[in-house]
């Protein structure tokens, strides 16, 4: 090794390092202080993530269109009285008949004026029928599994409730006789025959309920004078005689009712069979509660004291009649169950002991999983008593859906071609919809940016400011969602973008200042070793722009993915699917460029300051 460069009178000029070399050095530096760099990048990352959420929202046209029912359109945004409106104008009856809609159907949906009918209601009726058929099938299937618990489960709920239980019932419900015998005490249940006699004697309840209990004939006039709605009386009278006769011949008991009258128990039966009828009448609701008790009496069933009192029987009478019928207390049985569980199905035992039934156990016991999940709510288990309530409630649902199916079946007779034809010629235009919605508020509605979202998610933009005639020329279709944005929403979005960029800028500047400051010593050293000022700047800028690209790319990913997930889970995945993939790529580009530019702007000043600083001062700095 030998020294050179002695005796130089002129000094050479230091050459700039090739870019490739500088790139390699900065890559190396980034690689080595990876985690430190990631922290620096965090500021960029979060800022750009914020920007990306705003951009993604914008791409998805948030707020997004909700689903609109068939036959309707929805006006939303800056419009007075936004809401759902019929998408079809009233259709004249003649036009409907001509198109081939059956007259019975038209009669069902006739408007008050009598000359027109509503096409929307036909479409809604068809939808409701489909829904009812689907639901009926579901509840029936569920009932197949549930019904086998129908008979026995209530008993175990009664045991849990500490009620009195008859020995015979317990044995029938699968409690071994030996266990029952241990729990037998004397209890109180009214023997039907004694109750019957007592009622006849006192005549305390009103005439209708008494007639029900005694299964006497009631004439419509009597019923109406007793306050029963005419609808209900009509429905009872409309029950075919043959069925009634048939049932009674099976019983081979009392003679058939006189013509023009009906049997008291029939009233309870009709009420029970039409659960979705007349629910709004308080009187009917009361009948619903009271009549079954009396119907039970008529059917010679035993009645509980409490039920009899609730149904209007004086408590004194009821208690006096409490017989010496052998019963036992449910609470006693619970203690026995704790020790002796042989021969009792786990689900019953869990009910009696008020234990939790997990969804898994329920499914193993053949309970439909949908039901188990519904009962468990947000948890993983439910109580047997809630299952019992549901079992009691379930037949009602079967009846409700059966009634709906039969009521809406008529709409299926309207041919689809006729509906389509009418829908085309009687659909309303955008102008008519806006008029019906009392017109948008010109001050705040952005009519130049009006948007129609079709039922299939396709978006149409309408500029009514530029082409006012377009409103009358744009027909709306069933399920359309018309969004009239707020003028301010446009500015608000840009304000958000601006704010997010500002947040970004502050975060990045801070990170970069820190990153440069803590490297002052290193920069001084490099200058001692012959690095040019411009090289120091180049090195820092290269590093930070690499960092900026990566961090903003990742930030975009975070913002985009979180927004997509949020929209997907709250508004539906079809909303996400409406985004244009090219625009999504564009938003990535915007984010990366913004991140890089912000990073460069934030880096270049501290980098230049660091490079210009005399080497001696940079070396002295201690961080």
């Amino acid at each position, binding site marked *: *090794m030998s020294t050179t460069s002695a005796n130089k009178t002129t000094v050479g000029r230091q050459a700039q390092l090739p870019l490739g070399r500088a790139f390699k050095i900065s890559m190396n530096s980034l690689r080595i202080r990876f985690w430190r760099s990631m922290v620096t990048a965090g500021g960029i990352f979060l800022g750009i993530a914020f920007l990306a959420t705003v951009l993604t929202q914008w791409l998805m046209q948030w707020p997004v269109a909700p689903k609109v029912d068939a036959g309707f359109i929805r006006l939303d945004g800056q419009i007075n009285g936004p809401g759902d409106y019929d998408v079809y104008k009233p259709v004249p009856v003649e036009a409907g008949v001509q198109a081939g809609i059956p007259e019975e159907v038209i009669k069902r949906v006739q408007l008050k004026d009598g000359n027109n009918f509503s096409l929307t209601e036909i479409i809604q009726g068809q939808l409701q029928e489909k829904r009812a058929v689907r639901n009926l099938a579901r509840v029936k299937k569920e009932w197949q599994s549930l019904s086998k618990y129908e008979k026995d489960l209530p008993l175990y709920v009664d045991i849990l409730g500490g009620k009195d239980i008859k020995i015979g019932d317990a044995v029938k419900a699968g409690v071994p006789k030996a266990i029952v015998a241990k729990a037998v005490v004397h209890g109180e249940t009214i023997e039907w025959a004694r109750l019957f006699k007592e009622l006849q004697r006192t005549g305390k309840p009103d005439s209708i309920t008494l007639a029900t209990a005694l299964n006497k004939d009631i004439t419509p006039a009597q019923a109406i004078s007793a306050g029963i709605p005419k609808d209900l009386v009509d429905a009872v009278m409309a029950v075919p005689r043959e069925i009634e006769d048939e049932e009674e011949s099976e019983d081979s008991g009392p003679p058939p009712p006189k013509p023009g009258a009906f049997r008291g128990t029939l009233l309870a039966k009709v009420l029970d069979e039409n659960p979705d009828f007349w629910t709004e009448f308080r009187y009917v609701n009361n009948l619903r509660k009271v009549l079954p008790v009396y119907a039970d009496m008529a059917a010679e069933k035993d009645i509980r004291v409490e039920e009899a009192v609730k149904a209007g029987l004086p408590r004194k009478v009821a208690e006096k009649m409490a017989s010496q019928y052998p019963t036992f207390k449910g609470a006693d049985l619970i203690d026995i169950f704790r020790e002796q569980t042989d021969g009792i199905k786990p689900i019953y035992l869990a009910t009696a002991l008020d234990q939790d039934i997990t969804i898994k156990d329920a499914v193993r016991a053949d309970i439909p999983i949908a039901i188990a999940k519904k009962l468990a709510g947000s948890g993983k288990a439910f109580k047997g008593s809630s299952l019992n309530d549901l079992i009691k409630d379930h037949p009602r649902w079967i009846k409700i859906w059966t009634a709906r199916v039969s009521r809406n079946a008529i709409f299926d007779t309207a041919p689809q071609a006729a509906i389509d034809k009418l829908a085309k010629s009687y659909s309303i235009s955008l102008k008519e919809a806006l008029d019906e919605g009392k017109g948008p508020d010109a001050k705040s509605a952005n009519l130049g940016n009006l948007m129609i979202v079709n039922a299939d998610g396709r978006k149409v933009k309408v500029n009514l400011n530029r082409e006012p005639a377009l409103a009358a020329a744009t027909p709306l279709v069933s399920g359309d969602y018309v969004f009239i944005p707020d003028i301010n929403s446009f500015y608000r979005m840009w304000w958000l973008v601006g704010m997010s960029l500002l947040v970004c800028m502050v975060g990045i500047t801070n990170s970069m200042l820190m990153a440069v400051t803590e490297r002052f010593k290193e920069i001084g050293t490099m200058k001692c*070793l012959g690095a040019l000022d411009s090289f120091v700047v180049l090195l820092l800028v290269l590093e930070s722009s690499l960092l900026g690209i990566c961090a903003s790319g990742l930030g975009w990913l975070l913002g985009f993915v979180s927004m997509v997930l949020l929209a997907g889970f709250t508004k539906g995945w079809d909303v996400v699917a409406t985004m244009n993939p090219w625009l999504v790529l564009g938003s990535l580009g915007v984010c990366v460029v913004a991140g890089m530019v912000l990073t460069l702007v934030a880096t270049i000043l501290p980098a230049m300051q660091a490079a210009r600083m005399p080497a001696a001062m940079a070396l002295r700095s201690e961080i």
Partner: protein
Amino acid sequence: MATVDKKEYVVRTKDLVKEFTMGGQTLRALKGIQLDIYKGEYISIMGPSGSGKSTLFNMVGGLDKPTDGTVFINDVDMAQLDAQELAFLRCRTIGYIFQSFNLIPVMTALENVTLPMVFAGLSQDECNERGMELLNMVGLGDRYHHKPTELSGGQQQRVACAWALANAPSIILADEPTGNLDLKTGKEIIDLLKKLNKENNVTIIPATHDLKMLDISDRIVWIRDGYVERIEERADVQLQVGVMENEEH
């Protein structure tokens, strides 16, 4: 002992003045330093803390600009150089050794040593070859892939020596090279510097108050309060290093 050609100056300072403004008060760190350093000389700059050693060091190394006066390196006036020429000078003519080593923490020993060569425009292969040669010379050939944090203080300072030699400079400036080292490793570094001085005929200028340096210096410049107090030939200094060791801080 290197043969010193008295005619050939490598560093000359003329009326060197440096003022710092601190809190509105002007502090004169250097008050007109006149110093001629010959090629191939081992010349220690001695003085207590705050005497202006480091300031002089920075002026001579071109790391800072003097308030007044001139510094000539190889007869070139430093004040006349632009940034690129100054960088060229720092890269090839002067090697620096610092008290706190100042190795770049994220680079390995080899990468550190080759960095000045990269700045000098050598290819990667040339850099690696010469870098390994230098590391072998300072006895760290087998530790080339270690980062500074994985090396002891003495090893780091030896890497710094190799670093300073990277582009075969004619001057090595060392600012308290043994200040952060214990006695034994400090002695090793001093020996290494002396070896470089002898074998490569490099001018070594350590600013120090380590008295061990006195023993091997050709000349000693004593600085006090920004003045050159006296310049002694080594022969004039009668010091028993062994006695003085106890006075180490």
